[in-house]
C-alpha cells in the first residue's frame, strides 16, 4: 500500500486530492443513485481503493480522471448488484412494471392517449435547462432501480453495449428490453412533468 521512497509525501498528496475532489465525486454519485447514503458509501469505498492502489496511479491521467474512473467502477458494481437483487426479489419480469402493455395496443401501436406529441416547445434545445434537468432527475428516481442501472450503465460505459451485457450477465435481447423499457418510462414521465398542461386525458 503506497510504499515508495517518500510515503509521507504520497499521503499528503492523496489528502490533497481528497479535499479537492470529494464534493464533486459525491455530487456525481448522488445524481446517479437513489439513496444518498449509498452514494456516499460508494464514494468512500472508491477513495479508499484509490489510496490502496496509489502505487498504480501512473500519472498519465489527472488525479481527477483517475478518481472518477474508480468511482464509475464502484457504481457499475452497485448497479449490477441492484439488478441481480431486483430480478431475484421481483422474479423475472415484473408484470406490473411493464410499460409496454400500457403504452401500446395489442398490435404494437401507440395507444392514442400515450402517443408522444411533436410539440416543438417540448424537449427543444433551448428549453429551460434547469427545468429539464430537474424533471430528468425526478423521473430517474421514479424508475425501478434495476432499469435505472441498465440505462445509467449505458451512459457510464460510453456506449459499450457488449461490456454492459457482460457486466449484467444478460442476453443481448434482455438488456435491450431493459433499456427500451427504461427509456419509454423516462420519456413519458419527463413529458408529463415539463408540460403538465399537455397531460393527456387518461380515460
Amino acid at each position, binding site marked *: 500500500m503506497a510504499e515508495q521512497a517518500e510515503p509521507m509525501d504520497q*499521503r499528503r498528496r492523496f489528502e490533497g486530492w*481528497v479535499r479537492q475532489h470529494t464534493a464533486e465525486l*459525491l455530487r456525481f454519485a448522488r445524481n446517479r443513485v437513489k439513496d444518498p447514503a449509498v452514494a456516499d458509501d460508494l464514494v468512500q469505498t472508491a477513495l479508499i481503493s484509490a489510496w490502496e492502489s496509489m502505487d498504480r496511479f501512473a500519472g498519465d491521467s489527472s488525479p481527477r480522471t483517475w478518481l472518477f474512473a474508480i468511482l464509475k467502477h464502484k457504481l457499475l458494481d452497485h448497479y449490477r448488484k441492484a439488478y441481480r437483487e431486483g430480478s431475484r426479489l421481483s422474479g423475472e419480469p415484473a408484470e406490473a412494471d411493464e410499460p409496454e402493455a400500457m403504452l401500446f395496443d395489442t398490435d*404494437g401501436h401507440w395507444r392514442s392517449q400515450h*402517443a408522444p406529441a411533436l410539440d416543438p416547445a417540448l424537449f427543444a434545445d433551448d428549453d429551460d435547462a434547469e427545468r429539464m434537468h430537474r424533471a430528468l432527475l425526478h423521473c430517474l428516481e421514479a424508475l425501478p432501480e434495476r432499469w435505472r442501472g441498465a440505462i445509467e450503465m449505458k451512459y457510464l460505459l460510453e456506449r459499450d453495449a457488449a461490456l454492459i451485457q457482460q457486466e449484467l450477465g444478460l442476453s443481448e435481447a434482455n438488456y435491450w428490453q431493459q433499456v427500451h423499457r427504461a427509456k*419509454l418510462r423516462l420519456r413519458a414521465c419527463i413529458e408529463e412533468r415539463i408540460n403538465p398542461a399537455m397531460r393527456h386525458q387518461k380515460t
Partner: protein
Amino acid sequence: MTALLRTSCREATRLIELRALQPLTPRERLGLFWHLRICAACRAYRKHSAAIDHLMVRRADDAPSVDASSVEQAVLRRISE
C-alpha cells in the same frame, strides 16, 4: 414491401434505441425508415429520445449543497491508519 410496412410503434421505438449503439440489419433499417415516414408519434419519440440522451450525458452534476466533510474525514482517518 408489405412486410416492411408492418413495423409496429413498439418495434420502431425499440429500433430507435438499438440504433444508438449498434448497426441495424438492412431489414430493420428499412422497416424503421418507412415506419417513421408514416408515424408522427414515433418521429416525436425519436426526437425526445435523442434529447434525453443529450441530457443524460451533459447532466449537470450540481446537487444542491453537498456536505463532503463526513466522507472526507472518514477517508482521511482510514488512510492515516
